[in-house]
């Protein structure tokens, strides 16, 4: 049973036909880590902010549903996500910038406890200190009294995680949680997230452009490009048996030289059909339309017209 189910999510700029996310669907089962991968501008963070109901001004949800445990969070009238406390929490890319610079970190966590559980100031403070120890901060009492600028980036990310956990989320969204940190700290944060999944049974949506991180962390992977889901499947499906030309290209870009024109071409958000179309070496006239998701294996789906050809009996090019 999937804990989180996102379906048909379409998000665009107000007063403009441009859509940033087009019919995006993915799901996160309980206790699993699902990777949402794609290059910069592919809509990963937009998807997360939509789910959190934190979209910036000027961006609107056109359609789609976000369900937790089958409960619909999308308000059909306002087209915004109405979260309940404890549904979802999110950790961000720049931990230091994501913490209030004029508030002691212990207070920032305690504030969440007060809000979520209605407990008093002293109780909230001791809960906050407890939470700081739980995310592996030594000397939690001292750290609780520090301001964010007095802590390292890795410490701040732990504080951020403690803050997210204080919400007791069913789903934790981690938006490139280690991009701003160095490698050794990255490994520690990854361990922490894995431990927390085991302890709490929460589902994690792990957003990143770092394929190595995906290979290390994720159970299943959804590949996003230009706001469209290109392929989804288990980690092994994606890394060992990629079926979508974009996934292949993405994997190739890590290992070998790729055709520079593919990189420089960028994303055309005005494009109606497959957004990878003009960069894809297999593109043909059919690619002007939007490809359906084709099942290409157990739990493995890919959006490409090539699969339509295969189904019609023609050999792959």
């Amino acid at each position, binding site marked *: 049973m999937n804990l989180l189910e996102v379906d048909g999510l379409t998000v665009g700029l107000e007063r403009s036909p441009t859509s940033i996310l087009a019919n995006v669907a993915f799901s996160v089962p309980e206790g699993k880590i699902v990777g949402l991968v794609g290059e910069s501008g592919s809509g990963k963070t937009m998807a997360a902010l939509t789910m*959190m109901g934190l979209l910036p001004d000027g961006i609107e949800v056109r359609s789609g549903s976000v369900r937790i445990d089958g409960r619909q969070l999308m308000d059909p009238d306002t087209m915004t996500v109405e*979260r309940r406390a404890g549904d979802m929490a999110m950790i961000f890319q*720049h931990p230091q910038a*994501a913490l*209030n*610079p004029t508030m002691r970190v212990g207070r920032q966590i305690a504030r969440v406890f007060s809000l979520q559980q209605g407990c008093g100031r002293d109780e909230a403070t001791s809960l906050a200190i407890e939470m700081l120890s739980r995310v592996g901060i030594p000397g939690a009492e001292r750290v609780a009294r520090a301001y964010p600028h007095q802590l390292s980036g890795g410490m701040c990310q732990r504080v*951020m995680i403690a803050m997210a956990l*204080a*919400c007791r989320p069913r789903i934790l969204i981690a938006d490139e949680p280690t991009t701003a940190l160095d490698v050794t700290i990255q490994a520690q944060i990854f361990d922490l997230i894995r431990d927390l999944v085991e302890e709490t049974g929460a589902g994690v949506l792990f957003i990143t452009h770092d394929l190595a991180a995906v290979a290390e962390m994720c159970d299943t992977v959804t590949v996003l490009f230009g706001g469209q889901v290109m392929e989804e499947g288990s980690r092994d499906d994606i890394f060992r048996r990629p079926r979508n030309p974009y996934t292949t290209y993405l994997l190739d870009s890590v290992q070998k030289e790729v055709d520079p024109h593919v990189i420089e071409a960028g994303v055309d958000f005005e494009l109606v059909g497959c957004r990878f179309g003009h960069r894809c070496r297999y593109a043909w006239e059919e690619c002007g339309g939007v490809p359906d998701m084709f099942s290409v294996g157990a739990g493995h789906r890919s959006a490409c017209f090539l699969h339509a050809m295969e189904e019609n009996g023609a050999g792959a090019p």
Partner: protein
Amino acid sequence: MWTYLGRRLLVSVVTVAGIVVVVFFIMRVLPGDAAAVRAGPYASEEKLEQIREQFGLSDPVPVQFVNYVTDAVTGDLGTSIRTGGEVTEELLIRLPASLELAFYAVLLAVLAGVPVGVAAAARRDTWLDRAARVVAVLGSSMAFFWLGLILTFVFFFKLGWFPGPVGRLGITTQPPETITGFFTIDAALVGDWGLVWEAFTYLALPAVTVGFVLSAPIIKIVRSSMIETLDSEYVRTARAVGVPGRQVLFRDGFRNALVPVTTAIGIIFGYMLGGNIIVELIFAWPGVGRYAYEALRVNDLEALQGFVIVVGLLYIVLNVVIDFVYSWIDPRIKLGQKVVA
């Protein structure tokens, strides 16, 4: 903190010395002859000589400078050639009038400007935001003398709600005993509430005149720094963990916008420290601005020098106070470090 204060004091001494030197020599190159003004149009050459002798104007300039500085360090800023009185004393009598007006004007500007700026930022691009921007443009393009005259015309002459522009109190009213020099506070300290009220009625029009104009920069800076903090990642975090909107607005938004706002308030308060000459003239306000204006008209060198030096001193004090406020509102700022607001 004490090392900081010590260092600040040292720097201040240098600053004041610089002010004294610059002001002294600028005054010497101003055209005009103060002695001739004091002696009157029909004075004889002997009379002029006598006045020059009396006020030390016949000495060579370096001698005048040394004399001036040795007196100044003891707090004696010389004698006004216009009134014949001690400059230090005359300035100290007038300074509270200017400071009281400046204080209430800035207070009004802050009380009006901050909520308007916050509301404009919180409700960006709504009618409220647009109205706030119109007020800000109106305020910054408003001339003191025009607004002062219009307010006097409407609220004194036409409606009679406020007293006329005759100074800090009615002509027949005895001012309160000087404790702080602020009439509103001194009268309250002796418990004379009628006098407090009267002082406020006389303050109202000049304070509103200045306050309205000064609220414009406050609205602008509050709005823009609030927009910046409300778009910040930590405000997004606060929203993500479910902090209610009002708390986000003030504890996460406004609290972090305070440093640039404090800078702005400090700048406009500093601007008001020397007294607002135009407003003091229109409302017959017996402050240092008017004193400086009168001194300038008749080439009263020592009075002008004294004025500039006192205002310089006030600026230095103000800056130290602002530094303390910075370190208090933002934990990232340590005393003695530069602030990039």
